[in-house]
């Protein structure tokens, strides 16, 4: 069975940026060329998809999601998370190990992969724990995790406070060329905090998390990456200082990559004023100065990629008092339009924005996706860049509803998502 995606504007970072047809054969990209349509007009076993006016991109790759299974299936399962992913145009997602039990073993990794295969939506790549139980003490069996299919290690949510343990983890992981991700937060500096420490927290009386809590650990991790030569990936960079340090580290040739989340370049701590826990995440929403720095970092490629930190929590958990509610928001279904805003505002070119959702993240973890080069699996996302829609939490595919963007009008809607040549999301069938 052949599929021809005809007449769309193909944005395949580094390879193609313009109107072309995309031919899929046997679940793989077979050709990307203009006017393929004419050549194939007489072929019978061909499904033609009219993509006029649409963007045709590689399926998006998200290096940072929380799918809550095993352990917290009431928040999200691998099946519901994957459905949210493909609805948001993501065909590959990497899930953090802070499940219950923590993914620090082959059996959990294999369970996640099995659930993902059964869901038949997005590709799911587990991230293994750095330390046993993510306790920050002893290294997890990283070799076995890699063998079972983990693509990186992290104790996400729980920073590795012991610098010696972090050093050893980086050294050990470098034997497998494995990226090491550390949630940068000095847990002593951030203790008790629920939002950014600044003018707004002072007014609201909410205990704050200072920027320094992140920056101290960004500095430490960069120093350790320099020492060990390990591949360091910094998740959800949220402050001016972090952006500056990453920029400087890259200039010195230290192997570090960084990600930014859409909420960190779209919102400030002003969003917390109503005490709505849907504006509570970690790292917290910062100030306008930080938002501008993150946008600048994305623009000059100091920040390599956009990742969602999709973190589902149940309604009753987010209805709690602000300090009692858990950190985190969902993001898979709003990430693309929020990133497209940066294009509308002239901060990124369209190709650059797509790059940060596709080729760049795939390269950071060494995944053979995020591109439409002939021969790769046909993971393709079709987008109507001009369609506007209102975020209605009742219509999201995630099991959870915790987003600060409820009620926002978004521009840019995913129309169809293919994984391995199969349609896994179709707006018209919703």
């Amino acid at each position, binding site marked *: 069975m052949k599929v021809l995606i005809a007449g769309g504007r193909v944005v395949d970072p580094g390879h193609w940026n313009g109107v072309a047809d995309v031919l899929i054969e046997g679940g793989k990209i077979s050709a990307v060329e203009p006017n393929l349509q004419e050549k194939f007009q007489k072929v019978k076993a061909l499904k033609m998809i009219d993509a006029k006016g649409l963007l045709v991109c590689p399926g998006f790759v998200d290096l940072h999601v929380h799918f809550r299974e095993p352990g917290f299936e009431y928040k999200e399962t691998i099946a519901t998370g994957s459905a949210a992913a493909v609805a948001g145009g993501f065909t590959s997602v990497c899930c953090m190990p802070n499940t219950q039990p923590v993914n620090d073993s082959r059996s959990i990794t294999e369970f996640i992969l099995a659930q993902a295969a059964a869901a038949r939506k997005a590709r799911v790549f587990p991230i293994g724990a750095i330390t046993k139980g993510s306790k920050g003490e002893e290294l997890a069996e990283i070799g076995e995790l890699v063998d079972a299919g983990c693509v990186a290690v992290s104790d996400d949510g729980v920073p590795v406070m012991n610098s010696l343990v972090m050093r050893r983890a980086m050294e050990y992981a470098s034997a497998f060329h494995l990226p090491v991700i550390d949630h940068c937060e000095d847990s002593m500096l951030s203790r008790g905090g629920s939002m950014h*420490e*600044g*003018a707004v*927290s*002072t*007014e*609201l*009386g*909410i*205990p*704050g998390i*200072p920027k320094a809590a992140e920056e101290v650990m960004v500095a430490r991790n960069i120093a350790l990456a320099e020492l060990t030569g390990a591949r360091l990936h910094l998740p959800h960079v949220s402050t001016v200082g972090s952006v500056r340090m990453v920029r400087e580290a890259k200039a010195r040739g230290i192997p570090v990559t960084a990600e930014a989340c859409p909420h960190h370049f779209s919102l400030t701590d002003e969003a917390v004023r*109503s*005490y709505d826990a849907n504006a509570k995440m970690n790292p917290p929403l910062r100030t306008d100065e930080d938002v501008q720095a993150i946008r600048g970092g994305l623009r000059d490629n100091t920040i390599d990629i956009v990742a969602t930190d999709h973190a589902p929590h149940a309604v*009753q958990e987010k*209805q*709690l*008092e*602000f*300090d*009692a509610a858990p950190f985190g928001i969902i993001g898979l279904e709003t990430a693309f339009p929020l990133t497209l805003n940066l294009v509308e505002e002239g901060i990124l070119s369209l190709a650059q924005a797509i790059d940060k959702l596709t080729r760049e993240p795939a390269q950071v973890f060494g995944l053979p996706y995020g591109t439409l080069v002939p021969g790769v699996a046909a993971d393709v996302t079709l987008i109507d860049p001009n369609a506007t829609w209102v975020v209605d939490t009742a219509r999201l595919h995630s099991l959870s509803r915790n987003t600060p963007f409820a009620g926002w009008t978004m521009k840019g809607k995913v129309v169809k998502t293919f994984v391995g040549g199969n349609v896994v999301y179709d707006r018209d069938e919703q």
Partner: protein
Amino acid sequence: MSFKRKDLLGLGSLSPEEMALILEAAEPFKEVSGREIKKVPALRGKTVVNLFFEPSTRTRTSFELAAKRLSADVVNFSPSSSSVVKGETLLDTARNIEFMQADILVLRHSSAGAAEILAKNSRMSVINAGDGWHEHPTQALSDLLTIQEKKGQVRGLHVAIVGDVAHSRVARSNIHALTKMGAHVRVVGPPTMMPLFLHRLGVQVYHDFDKAIAGVDVVIMLRLQLERQGRSLFPSIREYARLYGLTFERVQRAAKDVLVMHPGPVNRGVEIAHDVVDGGSAVILDQVANGVAVRMGLMYLLSQRN
């Protein structure tokens, strides 16, 4: 002008006129508390629930007396712990109370914003009786009434607020109340107790008490939370008392007719010396008396809504 709000959540969002209205409403009720029969029928048939998630004797008692003197039916509800520990959410607890047809809910809670979250989701009038480090509006209104009575007006006065401002809801409410009413406010304490960007609230920040107290008309001392020792906010109670305790000598540096205030309970010999508590400048007990009147006035205004 009438008071249009359903709730009183904080003074940060109140206009000076609205604050003045509450103080005006409080004035006549002062006389009621002085009568032999301390009761008026203003809230007869209304139900007031005091929902206190934090231990409090004086604030709860003050609200209870205020409601009773207005002839309301009062119920004290003091769950031993907050929702996380207890398993029932704050909203569910409040909904239960709402469906028992309470009219006014007085909430004390350790989380900033708890009263606001509840007010948004309830038909009842919600009075914030202290939410985390955020606000304690009725305390600041009592202080405002006390200053107004003793000084004639608040506008133009120099007021020092001394102590752990970072962790104090009383400080935040007082800063809003005093700056909105036209006072010049300075806050005093070690940098560890001054939250970031405090000056944006319209106050001057001092770390030297002797300098800060020079010539002020009012000194508001904050209670030192003794249990905070050991969290690196201050090295010892001894040093704190030496640098930031209000002694008789320091009082002499203030204006001659300075008012010394404290929201209570007082740590004698820590943030305030024994002889200052009992001295002629202290109006700490007037604050307590005015607290009942302000709460009566406020509940009266809220019940007049509709």
